[in-house]
């Protein structure tokens, strides 16, 4: 009886939602555990880091790693799993592009540290104590925090990506099938359809060929009609610049797409693309009129790069000379 293929799941700077998406295979998970041996999955199983270290290099068929990378510990675990595994899948938006925690790349470390440990309204810290990484004296240690958030492929070599915040169980199931089949797609493939979300959106019939805006509406300012394209209603929707495959869940919830699947393979920087699409649809032709309309999008970086800031072309805010 041949050994079952071995797999591992791990989380870096993660919220655990990707883990939940695996559990959301629901009844299908029984088929998965029959087909593979899960060697490491901290949320659900008691295998420890030392257990991973005893696996032969390349002994795992695939390690599915979710979460962005922010600490030295996460880098170590990513590198360890890379060694122990034939294939690595960057699972979920954070591993794929940096994710929502990637928004921290707009701020610098000290600002964050000072607020959290000193200035926040509920913090009481007369000694100005701060968490201290390795003490080197046999005391408790904490990993180092890096200056910025990284996507997984900025730390280790990645074979495939499963997009989404989190990925949908249907696509995970298909990905597992693909990986077990031995018929592997080209390295670097994002395991999902390569068309935009608008293609599969149930409201696409109501999306006009030409959009023309005098103002955008933030979702809380208007009652969103349930059967009409959100862009047609003046609400910023990331659909045009986002890869499909999710079934347009957020639209089914009557809220706009926020871009979690990242772009299709033909786009390098998702935020820049949606910026282009949205801006070019402004009606005004003069600078003042254009600015007035665009002012109704108050936070371009947070809106267009909600999930992809570390993976974007610029990666992070810099302190340029002023």
């Amino acid at each position, binding site marked *: 009886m041949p050994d079952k293929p071995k797999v591992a799941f791990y989380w870096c700077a993660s919220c655990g939602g990707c883990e939940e998406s695996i559990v959301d295979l629901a009844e299908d998970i029984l088929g998965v555990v029959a087909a593979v041996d899960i060697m490491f999955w901290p949320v659900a199983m008691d295998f420890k880091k030392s257990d991973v270290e005893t696996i032969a290099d390349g002994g795992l068929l695939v390690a599915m790693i979710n979460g962005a990378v922010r600490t030295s510990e996460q880098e170590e675990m990513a590198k360890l799993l890379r060694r122990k595994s034939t294939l690595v899948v960057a699972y979920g938006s954070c591993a794929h592009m940096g994710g929502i925690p990637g928004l921290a790349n707009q701020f610098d470390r000290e600002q964050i540290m000072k607020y959290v440990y000193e200035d926040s309204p509920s913090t009481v810290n007369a000694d100005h104590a701060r968490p201290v990484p390795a003490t*080197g004296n046999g005391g408790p240690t904490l990993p180092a925090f890096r200056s910025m958030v990284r996507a997984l492929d900025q730390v280790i070599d990645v074979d495939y990506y499963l997009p989404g915040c989190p990925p949908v169980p249907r696509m995970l199931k298909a990905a597992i099938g693909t990986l077990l089949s031995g018929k592997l797609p080209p390295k670097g493939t994002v395991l999902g359809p390569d068309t935009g979300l608008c293609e599969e959106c149930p409201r696409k019939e109501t999306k006009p060929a030409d959009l023309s805006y005098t103002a955008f509406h933030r979702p809380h300012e208007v009652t969103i009609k349930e059967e009409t394209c959100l862009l047609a209603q003046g609400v910023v929707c990331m659909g045009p610049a986002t890869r499909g495959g999710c079934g347009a869940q957020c639209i089914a919830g009557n809220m706009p797409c926020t871009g979690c699947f990242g772009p299709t393979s033909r786009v390098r920087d998702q935020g820049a693309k949606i*910026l282009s699409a949205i801006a070019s649809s402004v009606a005004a032709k003069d600078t003042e009129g254009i*600015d007035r309309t*665009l002012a109704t*999008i108050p936070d371009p970086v947070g809106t267009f790069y909600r999930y992809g800031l570390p993976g974007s072309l*610029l990666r992070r805010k810099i302190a340029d000379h002023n």
Partner: protein
Amino acid sequence: MTTTAEQANGWEPRIVAFFCNWCTYTAADLAGVSRLRHAPNARIIRVMCSGRLDPQFVLDAFARGADGVLVGGCHPGDCHYMEGNYKALRRVRLLERMLDGMGIHRDRFRLEWISASEGEKVKTTINDMVARVRALGPLALPAKFADWDREMDELEHAVAAQTEDVHA
């Protein structure tokens, strides 16, 4: 400010200029033919229309080492394709705000309307932009990326205790 070290190293601003075929690129040709001398720091890329400017081009230029990006197109109303330059203007206005949010100084990115006969304007625009970017110093994103990524080489997490014996 450009540091003296950077001056000493002979750093020169590198500007990537996207000029539209019908107006600005023609004007640049005119400047050349007219022997108008301007700073040599701009690498000119011809696009058919300023409306062809994909914001990704701008970001990619910065990411690959450009210190400044200049966009040149036809004056409003004169676009060869009617509406292209309006689209460029709209994209540029939003891109400027986005670049603000990412800390890139406004002087590094500029949109200018330059018609085919305005060779002189090509010269003054390029000279002015090079001067401003020189004053700001290099953006040097590739070097910054490499520098940031060096932090991952530091074996910070090492040092588990010398007396570490039992791992569960």
